[in-house]
């Protein structure tokens, strides 16, 4: 299966998306090119390469095939059978060939951008993001790898209880940039609130306290729109962590073009927009509820008693976008954890592991020191 790589027109090496330049930059000779230019140029360059003896088998109708491992041994031509034998197994691994070294690139059904494990060449599986599967938007990476590593290092240093294994260079080297597939939802929401509220005033007259309670009948009906609420559509990425990476700055969001992914990992969505909707609806419910209630609390009532509340919402639009995240997986105490970094804003979302030993050490240390100080204080100042 054809693997896309963007070739430098000057030297033939691969071009990757450079964070600093926000352009495609050749890894070897430094030639720069705008993203959409690279996309246009790709078509012409690729055709040249194909006819020069690219060993991949080309199929025009764009169907996805069952890739069966055993076929490789049959020789290079027999990579794919035209027939879809057996059941369509979603966990089957697809076999692609690297455009540079000819090695097999092993990926699952969802990976859309990766690197050749042998020569490291950025390889893009275009069919995963083509046609109906094509993302509408992408926010390009704004934080380059060195900066991400530096942020990680600082984060590790901050905690007193961080186990030292996290500091090793071997761990740091594993940091990878990934475009995570997200659905961005636009919702229109309506809320109706009927509440009885009071305002209480107290004053003292002689030996008595006089309490005046004003009663109000309060009604609100408002409509509001919430735009581009993100929900990550990747099964692999933990939802709560992806949520916490928010907010992403949508000013930097651009129309999707394949070249942006060169040099990073990416995958297509596991879940479609309908499957993700309930998760977002929960958020919209909270948001409209808070927005509505805020108009009541702004009046500074003493008590607010909601008699009736009615919320309705409607999904206007769902867009498919790829958003940048730096990821580092590490294992501590047999548990694999993830350190993530918003590739645009730099926000860290990670649970820091706590070395129980270090925590216990600090706890005992503080106890002993405090105890000594307090006892001495009591001894000398206690009366």
């Amino acid at each position: 299966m054809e693997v896309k790589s963007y070739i430098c027109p000057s030297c033939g090496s691969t071009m990757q998306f450079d964070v600093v330049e926000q352009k495609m930059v050749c890894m070897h000779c430094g030639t720069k090119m705008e993203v959409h230019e690279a996309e246009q140029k790709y078509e012409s360059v690729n055709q040249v390469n194909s006819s020069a003896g690219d060993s991949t088998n080309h199929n025009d109708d764009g169907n996805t095939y069952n890739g069966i491992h055993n076929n490789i041994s049959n020789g290079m031509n027999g990579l794919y059978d035209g027939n879809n034998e057996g059941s369509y197994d979603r966990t089957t691994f697809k076999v692609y060939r690297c455009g540079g070294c000819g090695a097999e690139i092993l990926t699952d059904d969802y990976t859309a951008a990766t690197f050749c494990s042998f020569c490291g060449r950025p390889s893009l599986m275009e069919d995963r993001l083509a046609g109906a599967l094509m993302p509408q938007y992408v926010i390009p990476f704004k934080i380059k790898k060195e900066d991400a590593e530096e942020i990680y290092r600082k984060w590790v240093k901050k905690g007193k209880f961080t186990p030292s294994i996290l500091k090793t260079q071997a761990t740091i080297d594993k940091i990878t940039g990934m475009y995570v597939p997200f659905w961005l939802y636009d919702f229109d929401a309506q809320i109706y609130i009927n509440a009885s509220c009071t305002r209480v005033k107290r004053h003292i007259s002689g030996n008595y306290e006089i309490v005046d309670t004003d009663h109000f009948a309060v009604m609100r009906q408002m409509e509001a729109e919430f735009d581009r609420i993100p929900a990550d559509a990747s099964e692999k990425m933990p939802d709560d962590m992806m949520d916490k990476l928010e907010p992403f700055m949508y000013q930097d969001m651009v129309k999707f073009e394949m070249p942006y992914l060169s040099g990073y990992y990416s995958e297509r969505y596991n879940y479609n927009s309908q499957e993700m909707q309930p998760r977002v609806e929960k958020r919209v419910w909270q948001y409209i509820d808070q927005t509505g209630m805020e108009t009541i609390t702004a009046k500074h009532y003493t008590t607010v008693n909601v008699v009736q509340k009615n919320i309705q919402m409607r999904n206007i639009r769902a867009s498919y976008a790829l958003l940048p995240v730096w990821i580092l997986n590490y294992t501590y105490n047999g548990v694999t954890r993830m350190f993530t970094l918003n590739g645009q804003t730099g926000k860290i979302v990670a649970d820091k592991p706590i070395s129980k030993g270090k925590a216990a050490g600090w706890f005992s240390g503080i106890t002993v020191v405090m105890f000594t100080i307090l006892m001495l204080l009591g001894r000398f100042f206690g009366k």
Partner: protein
Amino acid sequence: MIRLNKFLKTSFMMIGTCLLIFLAVILQKENAFADSSDKTYVYDMAGIYSDDEIEYLSEECQNASERVEIDFVITTTADTGYKGYVEYADDFMDDNGLGYEDDGRCDQSCVMLLLDFDNQQVYIDTTGFAILCIEDDDIEDILDDVFEYIPERDYYNAAFVFINKTYDVIVENKASYADEYLAQWKNFDGTYEEFEDEYVNITHNIFYNLKKPYVSLGISLLTAFVVTLIMGSGSKAKMTADRRTYLNRSNVRMHLMTDQYLRTTTTRHKINTGSSGGGHHGGSHHSSHGGHSHGGGGRHM
């Protein structure tokens, strides 16, 4: 030089011995006056009691006094002169040196019932350990019992029930809390107020509590726990996007917004004036002109 030392030594020894003898005599003399059978328990200056009544009351007083080590005294008067009844009672007790202890201490322990016909007041005055044993509520209770006889002018029974009720109160409070301080009181010389400040309602400064090991340990553990928690809490990531991040501000439509005033309801309730010093034992007290602490309370006849 040596001769001088020898001279000094012998002089001191002689003076010392003389002093000892002198003291022994003095103390003996003091004790001579302490014979309780010489005490007057009833001062009937208003002349309302018969001799028999005085005798019975005195006996009751003496019994009660000896049992609880607090003197019981009944006093009646028809003329307090220019003094108010409290001042009269205080001065009367001070001037007559009323009280159980006869060791020359500053404040002695006594509880006195004063029937003041001049001011039409029944007043109970307490000194010394009696202030600790008879709290303000108790005074009221005793007066309640006494006043059952006042309207009928049965002053004998009024006094009688005073002795019995007060005795019961003292016995109960001694068992409940007062006896803990008895040993200290016996060795104490000073006003009751001083005694109270030093032994009963001791106001320690805050560092005193640190002396107790479990207090210090508790605080240390708590601090360590909190500090460790804070140090570890930096580990959790938080959600920073909220409704404001995604709200389209230009498209908020308010269809209905009414705050309709309905009515006002009013309530009033009486404020409690704070009760006197909570949480400690002993009745409230003041200082008399003689510089002694007096407690007590009264009621109009």
